[in-house]
């Protein structure tokens, strides 16, 4: 089981693969309000000076260890969020 870590009123986002290079390996966002996945991606894109650009369509977002399919899914402070580029195993 994934254990969400609470950072006060922060939201912790871990990034993988090329996204880590663009945005950074981990981002803490100060917020006490829930966000949608769409809002979170927009925020991260702004933080990276628009660097997420072409990746916004390809990124998958996992919340508490499961991929969420909808851009309208809600993320709450304390949730464990991961931004995942297309897989490249093997």
């Amino acid at each position: 089981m994934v254990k969400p870590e609470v950072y006060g009123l922060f939201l912790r986002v871990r990034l993988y693969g090329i996204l880590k290079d663009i945005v950074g390996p981990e981002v803490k966002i100060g917020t006490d309000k829930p966000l949608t996945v769409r809002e979170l991606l927009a925020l991260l894109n702004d933080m990276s000076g628009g660097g997420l650009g072409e990746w916004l369509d390809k990124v998958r977002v996992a919340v508490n260890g499961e991929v969420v399919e909808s851009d309208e899914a809600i993320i709450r402070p304390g949730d464990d969020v991961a931004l995942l580029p297309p897989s490249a195993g093997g």
Partner: protein
Amino acid sequence: MRRVLVGIVREEVDVGRIVEGFKPLGKEGYGAIVIFVGVVKGVVDGLGVEELRYEAYEELAEKVLARIAEEEMRKHELGAVAIYHRVGDLRPGDTTVYIVVAARGRREGFAAAAEILDRVKHEAPVYKLEVREDGEFWVIGDGERVPRPPRPRGP
């Protein structure tokens, strides 16, 4: 005997030991063990590869591997499935991924192993950076290469 073995691992996996574990399933009618072992290539598109740096979102990756194993086990009526993916800095000749299935017959076995491998490549949250003689590239999906962008912080 555990019928589904999966893991994101740092070390090599002992294929002989998995075969040893799956052999007794012959008694139940599983007569074909098919294994795929991926190996880092030293040459891609004619260019030298120094290293593949693998990382995984591990909490999710192991769940995804287990899900693939269980779904394919049902679909192909397998007796057992093992899927291991390595992470870390791997060099040409190092192993990367291991798929082992025990199937009723050879056709199901080959089909299942090939399909599991495809799914692992596309579904498991595993990422690789190819360090080549002409620079560093993120491998995206099944072969597209994107030059590593400049980083916002440290190397």
